[in-house]
């Protein structure tokens, strides 16, 4: 299973390295969203500072939708989906590989966005350990749920519009927990934030376990 996961993750990351969709399309989109938030909220007042963690994670989730859609689209094209089934790979390995590739891309994006937040919103980055742990666990949960719903929507003609509708409610708890943990980390109260981090760990574990169990059946029926 892990060997299959490594093979699929390597393929997806190589695809990203060659196509540069994350770098040339998703990252500029994410930065643009941050800039628009800054325009929409008062830069001079407290509003932006208070809202920064929430805005950051909303931006991450919007970007995650693009990353997940891209991850599903490469398999939908040219019957690659059938070829993947025919290859005889462990479905759990395919799930873990695709989720890992999405997670790696999102983590790179999150580092970039954190720089953007510091630069555009003047946010002082504190509580680095909590920020990193939160980012890793929240990203794992989002990538796992996204990969699962990506394959669920893959066989449908309306997958592009259906995926956000399915995914956003499922990752709403991740958004709440990650925002709360970031608020505490950036507010200099990291100690209080680890409980949220633990909750994110539970979400990540549940979504990943569910994906490992359900992905095979969804891949067959999609």
């Amino acid at each position, binding site marked *: 299973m892990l060997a299959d996961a490594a*093979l699929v993750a390597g*393929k997806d990351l190589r*695809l990203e390295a*060659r196509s540069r969709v994350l770098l040339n399309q998703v990252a500029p989109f994410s930065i643009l969203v941050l800039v628009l938030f800054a325009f929409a909220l008062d830069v001079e007042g407290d509003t932006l500072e208070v809202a920064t963690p929430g805005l950051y994670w909303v931006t991450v989730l919007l970007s995650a939708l693009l990353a997940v859609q891209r991850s599903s689209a490469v398999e939908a094209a*040219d019957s*690659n989906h*059938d070829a993947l089934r*025919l290859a*005889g790979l462990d479905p759990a390995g395919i799930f873990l590989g695709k989720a890992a590739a999405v997670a790696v891309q999102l983590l790179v994006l999150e580092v970039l966005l954190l720089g953007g937040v510091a630069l555009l919103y003047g946010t002082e980055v504190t509580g680095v350990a909590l920020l990193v742990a939160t980012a890793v666990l929240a990203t794992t949960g989002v990538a796992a749920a996204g990969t699962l719903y990506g394959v669920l929507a893959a066989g449908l003609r309306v997958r592009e519009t259906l995926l956000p509708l399915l995914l956003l409610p499922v990752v709403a708890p991740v958004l709440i927990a990650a925002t709360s943990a970031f608020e505490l980390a950036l507010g200099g109260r990291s100690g209080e934030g680890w409980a949220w981090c633990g909750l994110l760990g539970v979400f990540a574990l549940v979504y990943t376990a569910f994906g490992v169990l359900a992905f095979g059946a969804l891949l*067959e029926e999609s």
Partner: protein
Amino acid sequence: MEPLVHLRGAVVLLGRFPALAGVDLDVEPGEIVLLRGANGAGKTTLLRACAGLVRVTDGDAVVLGHDLRADRRAVRRRIGMLGHATALYDELTVVDNVRFWARAAGATVAHADAALERVALPDRLRDVPVALLSTGQRRRVSLASVLARRPELWLLDEPHAGLDQDARDLVDELVRAAAAAGATVLLASHELDRAEAIATREVTIAGGIVRGDRRLAAVTAPPPAEVPDAG
């Protein structure tokens, strides 16, 4: 000898439409079976059913000793399928694509490289993204991906489509070589003259059932040195 493919009253529903309406077919190891029939007759669905890509909802379906109604996944790694689509990742290079599909099916990088040599794609194209290739070149890469898996059962759906004369000859040569090495081939084609020249048997399908079945003249095998490993 046990048939490699054993279908008895096999039914496949696409939605509520019976794409296969009770197919009876036994295929022995080493046979090259040409499936002929009009568009929509059920040829592609039959190939997809043998690959376990669609569910057989009624009847018996045993491929490579595995009951497809009980477990569709078990046989897949032993099957090579060339369909209408090429199943390649556009942004990946030729060599990356063939190596990925080879490794995914449990074959090695060496098998992938040997398969690429076998389809006679120019060396200068090996590191080119497949998005930049012509249709015929993509089909050759796809054929290499199938070859690299060293399948026991080849399922070929219109394998000559979109190919130039040399590539069509290459397909015929590879099919003959695979059969000579012990592999079994099911081939759906509208190019009957060409397909009949390599097939050992012709099965006619219409309306999702087998309407005719006849033996064809034996084919001449190519030199053993060029035979791909069927195991």
